[in-house]
């Protein structure tokens, strides 16, 4: 039998010699051009990193192609980033240009560094999950097709992190992104009363609802859902498969803005609702693409250098954000969860728009 609990391979064995030598002794770095980093060690040794975009959903053939490239230019060393880009690691300066040329000829976008739109962190969607309100890879591809020039340049005011999650579980962790694309359901789960008693634990199902919309129904041994209290989060479905809530016409996408993770300058921030609903429109989600582009380009036009999306909005005010982007402000933008009071404007300080 195979050994268990061996853990992952030791990362030390996978690092190129220049890293082994300079581990913990890097002195500074420069971004030489979009997608090209230079890190210099205390001894003066140099490491070059060429960063390329990836669809994340990759075939083994694709991975082998990457391996080939890494073998040709990088002695077989490479890594992936926390946002799923590919990083080719090399020391031989003369190989940089050819490597980038080959990547470009093979249609790899080179970039994702500095003040750019880097890869979109995303999730499974219709490819492999049971709760999605939209697809993941599709909208990501459609959006990045439109934004790819911002990946391979560094013309944004600051870093822009876009993320997508296909349901409120938020596996893409969109809750702290400059721009977030979030799949949402909008219909109340329809209990399959014939299955609920068999496949679901009623108390767990009842407890799963954040708004207390679910009541046990002793008669049917199933549950009833208070339509007025349900906000379609799908948490009950996670624990009880007999409560499906997907709906072709009413599922769709919401757009969120102004989150960040880093502690640089401002503290980490949650993303805030910008657009409550856009329809699912496969294969290219034009409404979503246009909405993201509009927000991004409005930001690019108005923000100051080094100002993240959320920092920009905090400076100009939300009323100004809605005016500049032309996005409609609705009652849905106003929180009504337990956190609501914290979000109310409890001051007379505001702008007219």
């Amino acid at each position, binding site marked *: 039998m195979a050994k268990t609990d061996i853990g992952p391979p030791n990362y030390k064995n996978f690092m190129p010699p220049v890293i082994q030598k300079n581990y913990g002794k890097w002195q500074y770095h420069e971004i030489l051009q979009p997608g090209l980093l230079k890190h210099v060690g205390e001894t003066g040794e140099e490491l070059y990193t060429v960063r390329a975009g990836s669809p994340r959903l990759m075939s083994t053939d694709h991975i082998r192609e990457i391996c080939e490239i890494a073998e040709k230019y990088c002695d077989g060393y490479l890594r*992936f980033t926390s946002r799923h880009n590919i990083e080719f690691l090399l020391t031989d300066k003369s190989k940089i240009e050819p490597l980038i040329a080959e990547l470009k000829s093979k249609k790899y976008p080179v970039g994702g560094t500095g003040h750019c739109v880097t890869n979109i962190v995303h999730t499974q969607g219709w490819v492999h999950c049971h709760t999605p309100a939209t697809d993941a890879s599709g909208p990501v591809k459609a959006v990045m097709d439109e934004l790819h020039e911002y990946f391979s340049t560094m013309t944004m005011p600051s870093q822009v992190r876009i993320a997508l999650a296909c349901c409120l579980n938020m596996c893409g962790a969109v809750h702290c992104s400059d721009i977030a694309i979030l799949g949402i359901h909008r219909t109340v789960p329809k209990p399959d009363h014939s299955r609920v008693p068999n496949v679901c634990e009623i108390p767990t199902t009842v407890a799963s609802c954040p708004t207390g919309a679910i009541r046990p129904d002793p008669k049917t041994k199933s549950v009833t859902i208070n339509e007025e209290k349900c906000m379609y989060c799908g948490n009950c479905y996670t624990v009880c498969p007999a409560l499906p809530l997907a709906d072709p016409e009413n599922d769709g996408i919401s757009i969120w803005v102004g989150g960040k993770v880093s*502690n640089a300058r401002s503290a980490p921030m949650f993303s805030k609702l910008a657009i409550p609903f856009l329809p699912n429109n496969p294969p290219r989600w034009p409404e979503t693409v246009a909405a993201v582009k509009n927000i991004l380009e409005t930001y690019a036009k108005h923000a100051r250098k080094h100002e993240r999306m959320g920092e920009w909005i905090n400076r100009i005010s939300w009323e100004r954000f809605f005016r500049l982007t032309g996005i409609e402000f609705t009652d849905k933008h106003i929180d009504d969860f337990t956190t609501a009071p914290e979000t109310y404007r409890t001051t007379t300080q505001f702008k007219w728009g």
Partner: protein
Amino acid sequence: MAESETPLLDELEKGEWPSFVKDMKQAAEKKPMAKDLLRQLELSYKEKIGHWKHGGIVGVKGYGGGVIGRYSDRPDLFPGVAHFHTMRVNHPTGWFYTTKALRTLCDIWDKHGSGLTNMHGSTGDIILLGTSTDHLQSCFDDLSDAGFDLGGSGSALRTPSACVGPARCEWACIDSLNICYDITMSFQDQLHRPMFPYKFKIKVSGCANDCVASIARSDFSIIGTWKGKIQIDQKEVQAYAASGLDVQAEVTDLCPTKCMTWDEKAKTLAIEDADCTRCMHCINMMPKALRQGKEKGATLLIGGKAPIVQGALLSTVIVPFMKLEPPYQELKDLILKILDWWDEHGKMRERVGELINRVGMRTFLKDIGLKPAPQMVKNPRTNPYVFFWPEEIKKEVK
């Protein structure tokens, strides 16, 4: 040429960004499984709805997790994906690879699965996307022989991850990779045999830039920081200024605590270090000129998570500063203590952050033995609903 079976998805082969459809088609050429995945996805695109059933429990021997069960709701149309489980493989810390290792992975997956992957999953795992139940064990066996192991799923410790840190970053205040690897190796049991009320994620970032998003995406966040003065190389500051950096506008004006002053005439930068909150901004702007203070360690935070159920939480400071050197015993003891406490008090599907909110931070701190510090809060409470411990109340006079 025959008409395409996937006219909608074909649209996504166009455009500049790498196309996942291209990858799916590549795999589909070799694997009927992948082909049916493509066809089922086309149906989803047409109907605007997913076609997977609610997951079932499948796995490999000795493990309680690491595999996500998945079944098509149209096995009649797409028999290749009647079962289509993903395997979560623990990535090498920092996502470093030799091509040799990667190729081995590919070979194993071509043998056992769909030939499709996610490099990587959102928690950091290598996601081997889709295989049938009967291949799970043999695939695992092959992975294990090749030196790979499964990652976490279910109510377990999830695969910890770390920023690239000391391997390629001058700002790592802690050895993020080694800490992550050490934790992963030390907590194999917690990773593989679900035993907790819910999932538990650990992420390690070398500095406040938090390049693995630990503060947003992990229940336990380890983030490097420092004590002592930021080391200023005035010559290099001048070089940045000379090369076009507007030190006043781009650096000092953006310092959140306004503790920096740039003397435009003398071209010298001064920092009132006692006021610095180590946000990294100035250092980010001038890596060659500024270096962090000499005493390095980490801030530990707890409770980060996505919104389900009580709303999203960012991790919150529980240890302002801990020195972290191998074997990281103090750190691991603390994590174990917290896991135990959560295990004992947590309800089903209650993340540790939610549990703390339910029972109160004061109870958490007392039970874990951590000293309250103002650094744990943005501000002290505003409501007067203060609990006192029984021992603080004078014996009641009848």
